[in-house]
């Protein structure tokens, strides 16, 4: 359907539109007009992605003189593919109605592992080794060498791509990763480098958060994006954590050992070069004297990861004298490693600010702050000079230099925490030194500054006023949309007591109480006997899940559950979990029924959908608070309190509730779907906890369902399931229209005009 929102003609590829999608578009359009940032919460299953894509592309079409570019960030490759598939539908529709002038170029960009078509490179098992295998075939010096020695293996795809040079362009269209690979294979061009090259010409780019937020990657991939871009972060409820992770580094004993080995190798290489080709090292030295700022001309096609610090924090000055010579630099690194090794040998937990860490480093190892700052760039330059291609082997030393540069650059918002062992396993010494970032606004600040509009959207962004504070920006629009429903297809319940009226909770002093464990077990036993097909349970942590399942096994509760449904458990092993999920789905399909035990904050809770019969009920056991004794968390809480005036308790509850909402939100993925959600903890009945749940859940949480015991929940569940099994009318009754047609929209526009007139 085609309709107008103010002065923009919107092309929407479906015949009907949900009212909330329309509102979403209106708000989005106002954001674009105001050239500001916005924060939009809309429940999953209401077609957020298509609303967003169709508005932004239509906006672009309506302003042909100032074309905007859409940068769409997703969390996973799977979501990226889904987004591109929707865009394809939309693009076909627009081309059908507007002809070829509506053609756009949209590409998905991912790592080499997902885009490479060279079978020999792809044989490597992980991402880093694929990268290294690619570099081994495509680095400029390797290619230069191959003209002399024909037995060196090169990548044909890359060679062809290079030969085509400026002519290597993608014709307009929407390319998923699969399409890119097919195109590359067909033409014999490397899809990865082609996609990287096309980033500057594309109208729509879909890629991962890291490409914008992690300064190391953003520096090389995203630096050419113009200001007139609209950046969208989809599923952004965890965006603060992504920002923090992008700037955090942890160093373990293994890292140090590896770094030492790397240094030996580098030393060896330096000696070899000194004997054969002393000129190269001298040339590098001279270049460094002139300053790192000019290093651009050195690399040519061989881009390395960029500096881990944010662009505006990097000094444009010459490298300090004491590390200009290769061997001197290696000495400095050795001293740094030694110092870190000493620090790791500690017996108790230490917490330090970067400032004091740097000063003690200066006094004990004689390394200045300025020197530290340049470590990363210096290493990079050295490795390029030494023509090292197997980068995956050099990861440890890169990590250490990463750490050095960050610690040298930032004095605020970070802290260094050294823990001699994991808190949960105090007998096994496993020292770890962490540089953890506390300020999520650091990493995202350049994005806000650089781009015209940044859209942060997700199904769960409640409470919506906290995000601007955490990320320190001022949105022009921040709104939470409700879901218009033809029927009450979600049924949230707060269960506070077992059938014996004893309260249930995962509070620390209560969680191992046999009564609570038994009541939790009984709840599930009863539920599996009345809920068809799939049931998903989320626990607060792996250790708690392991404990409770062991107890259920001893008391025979697990056996009772198994009589009704098969039981599958998420483990920390990805392969095992994938297998379990696969079998879980099969059990749901064939009617046997299954229960999936999973962990909040785990992989399953974040990325896997349990829609339709794969999840008719989700039980959230307890409130998924973070591990509150973790030193990193404590440091972050302190920082948040001091800097942003966010109370510790507020942040913890907010974080726990967004995880809980995320878990239960897995169950409903579209309006035709239905599902129940049980929050099994007495703390959910308290207002301060409950009010932080997203609005679309709260609006279905009736007062009568706030303080239930197991038998009452069973009764409600029975009624609900029966009601939902009845056939229903999709378009909704007259009172609440849930599907708008073109005429409805025109009518709405008319009344809006009339309202304005009066």
């Amino acid at each position, binding site marked *: 359907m085609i309709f107008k929102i103010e002065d923009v003609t919107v092309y929407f590829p479906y015949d009907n539109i949900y009212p909330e999608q329309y509102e979403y578009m209106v708000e989005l359009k106002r954001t674009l007009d105001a050239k500001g940032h916005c924060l939009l919460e809309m429940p999953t299953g209401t077609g957020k992605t298509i609303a967003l894509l169709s508005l932004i592309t239509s906006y672009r079409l309506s302003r042909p003189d100032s074309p905007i570019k859409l940068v769409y960030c997703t969390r996973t490759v799977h979501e990226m593919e889904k987004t591109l598939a929707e865009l394809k539908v939309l693009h076909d529709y627009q081309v059908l109605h507007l002809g070829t002038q509506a053609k756009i170029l949209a590409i998905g960009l991912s790592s080499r592992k997902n885009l490479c078509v060279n079978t020999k490179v792809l044989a490597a098992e992980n991402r880093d080794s694929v990268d290294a295998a690619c570099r081994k075939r495509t680095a400029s010096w390797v290619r230069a060498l191959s003209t002399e020695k024909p037995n060196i293996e090169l990548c044909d795809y890359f060679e062809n791509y290079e030969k085509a040079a400026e002519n290597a362009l993608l014709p307009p269209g929407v390319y998923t990763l699969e399409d890119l690979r097919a195109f590359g294979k067909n033409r014999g061009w490397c899809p990865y480098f082609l996609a990287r090259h096309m980033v500057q010409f594309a109208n729509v780019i879909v890629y991962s958060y890291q490409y914008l937020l992690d300064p190391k990657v953003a520096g090389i991939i995203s630096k050419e994006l113009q200001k007139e871009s609209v950046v969208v972060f989809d599923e952004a409820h965890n965006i603060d954590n992504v920002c923090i992770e992008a700037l955090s580094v942890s160093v373990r004993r293994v890292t140090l050992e590896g770094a030492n080995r790397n240094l030996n190798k580098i030393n060896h290489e330096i000696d070899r070069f000194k004997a054969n080709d002393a000129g190269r090292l001298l040339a590098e030295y001279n270049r460094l004297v002139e300053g790192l700022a000019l290093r651009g001309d050195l690399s040519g096609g061989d881009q390395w990861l960029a500096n881990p610090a944010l662009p505006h924090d990097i000094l444009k000055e010459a490298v300090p004298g004491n590390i200009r010579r290769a061997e001197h630099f290696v000495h400095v690194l050795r001293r740094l490693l030694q110092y870190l090794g000493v620090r790791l040998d500690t017996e108790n937990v230490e917490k330090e600010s970067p400032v004091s860490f740097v000063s003690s480093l200066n006094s004990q190892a004689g390394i200045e702050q300025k020197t530290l700052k340049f470590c990363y760039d210096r290493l990079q330059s050295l490795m390029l000079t030494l023509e090292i291609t197997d980068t995956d082997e050099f990861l440890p030393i890169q990590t250490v230099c990463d750490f050095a540069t960050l610690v040298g650059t930032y004095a605020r918002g970070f802290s260094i925490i050294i823990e001699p062992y994991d808190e949960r396993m105090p007998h096994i010494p496993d020292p770890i030194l962490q540089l953890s970032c506390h300020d999520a606004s650091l990493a995202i600040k350049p994005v806000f500054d650089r781009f015209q509009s940044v859209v942060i959207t997700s199904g769960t962004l409640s409470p919506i006023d906290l995000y601007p504070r955490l990320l320190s920006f001022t949105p022009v629009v921040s709104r939470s949309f409700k879901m218009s429903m033809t029927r009450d297809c979600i049924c949230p319940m707060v269960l506070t007591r077992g059938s014996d009226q004893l309260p249930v909770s995962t509070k620390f002093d209560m969680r191992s109480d046999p009564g609570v464990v038994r009541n939790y077990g009984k709840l599930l036993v009863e539920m599996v006997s009345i*809920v*068809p097909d799939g049931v998903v349970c989320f626990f607060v942590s792996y250790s708690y899940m392991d404990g409770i399942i062991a107890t259920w096994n001893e008391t025979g509760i697990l056996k009772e559950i198994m009589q009704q449904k098969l039981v599958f458990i998420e483990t920390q092993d990805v392969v095992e979990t994938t297998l379990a999920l696969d079998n879980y789905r099969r059990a749901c*399909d064939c*009617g046997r029924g299954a229960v999936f035990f999973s962990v909040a904050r785990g992989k399953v809770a974040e990325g896997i959908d349990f829609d339709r019969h794969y999840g008719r009920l989700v039980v959230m056991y307890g409130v998924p608070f973070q591990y509150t004794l973790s030193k990193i968390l404590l440091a972050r809480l302190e920082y948040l309190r001091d800097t942003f005036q966010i109370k510790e308790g507020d942040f913890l509850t907010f974080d726990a509730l967004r995880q809980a909402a995320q878990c239960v939100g897995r169950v409903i993925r579209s309006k035709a779907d239905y599902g129940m959600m049980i929050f099994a903890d007495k703390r959910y009945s308290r207002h301060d906890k409950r009010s932080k749940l997203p609005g679309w859940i709260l609006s279905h949480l009736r007062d009568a369902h706030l303080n239930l015991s197991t038998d*009452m929940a069973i*009764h409600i569940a029975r009624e609900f399931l029966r009601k939902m099994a009845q056939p229903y009318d999709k378009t909704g009754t007259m009172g609440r229209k849930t599907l708008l047609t073109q005429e409805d929209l025109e009518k709405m526009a008319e009344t809006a005009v009339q309202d304005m007139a009066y």
Partner: protein
Amino acid sequence: MSNQRKRLTGEREDEDDEDAEGIGEWERAYVDDRSWEELQEDESGLLRPIDNSAIYHAQYRRRLRMLSAAAAGTRIQKGLIRYLYIVIDFSRAAAEMDFRPSRIAVMAKHIEAFIREFFDQNPLSQIGLVSIKNGVAHTLTDLGGSPETHIKALMGKLEALGDSSLQNALELVNEHLSQVPSYGHREVLILYSALCTCDPGDIMETIQKCKKSKLRCSVIGLSAEMFICKHLCQETGGLYSVAVDEVHLKDLLLEHAPPPPAIAEFAIANLIKMGFPQRAAEGSMAICSCHKEVKIGAGYMCPRCKARVCDLPTECTICGLTLVSSPHLARSYHHLFPIAPFDEVPAFSSLNDSRRTLGKSCFGCQQSLIGTGNKPGPCVTCRKCKHYFCLDCDIYIHESLHNCPGCESIHRPKSVSLMEE
């Protein structure tokens, strides 16, 4: 009176809302649907009685419309000769007490009613019973045309045990139905109370097998929607429904009584050999071929081999001839020519309708159509003869009589006078 009592319970409920601990099972239903809020007062402050008949009628109209929509206005072929297996799930879940006194008793009760209704509407068809117990499917009765034998077999076996297996039941029924003549419509109606199925093999293969052998599978669930049942019904063209309560269960069951539209492959005209046996003379003694017992009177004689059978319709055990009586055939006839649904008369327009003022009573039962407060009550009108009928007569005409009194009286005025006598 009962309304007032409800109101009292409601008020007490409000009082002890603070300590919700004490809500008993019997009170909860009121908390959920707040039935006292539906009560309305009229101008003089008296309680207005809740008029449920309008709601029931609306439900009926919806059902009727659905059926006629399936027929799509034009004459479609219906499968009049049906071979139906009723599969009853007697697994552990059937012992649950959410239907009073228990699911199993309620199921049995309504299946009994259904079997009678089924033979009433489909005199040429046959039924067989299969039960699922302990994960195994058992044949309770083979295909047959006598309601009494089925009901007797069903009532004898009322106990619920073990798991349920959809696949076993389907395999068994499929095997049984593979032998029925090709003109017959193969159907299974499954009453499923369990929420899972423990199958020995891949149920998807079995579903494909059923689809291939044109077995129409319908499922009535007793607790919640199951994916596999929905899938089964979609694949084989059956209906899937879930009962909300006992009344609904009955309605859902009875929806399966009228014959479904014929599957295209069967829609070719076919000649079937049938015998019309004579009723044996009162007091004549003979050994019946079905029970091997000596019986006095009450029986039918096969016109081909002269064997004695007890009930019609059936297949002669000796020569295999299909035995029916002519009223059976006649009664099946109306399915082919259903009367069109009546139009509802909108309440406001009927005020100025001159004809309406003339006939203020229902043409069927002669009751006054004027409702309470001298306002016209709800009524319907036949499209052909334009006569008005009350809601009760509407239901009676469409579901039992299958003839419109108005239309009949126009064509043959004599018969009207006969009726009135």
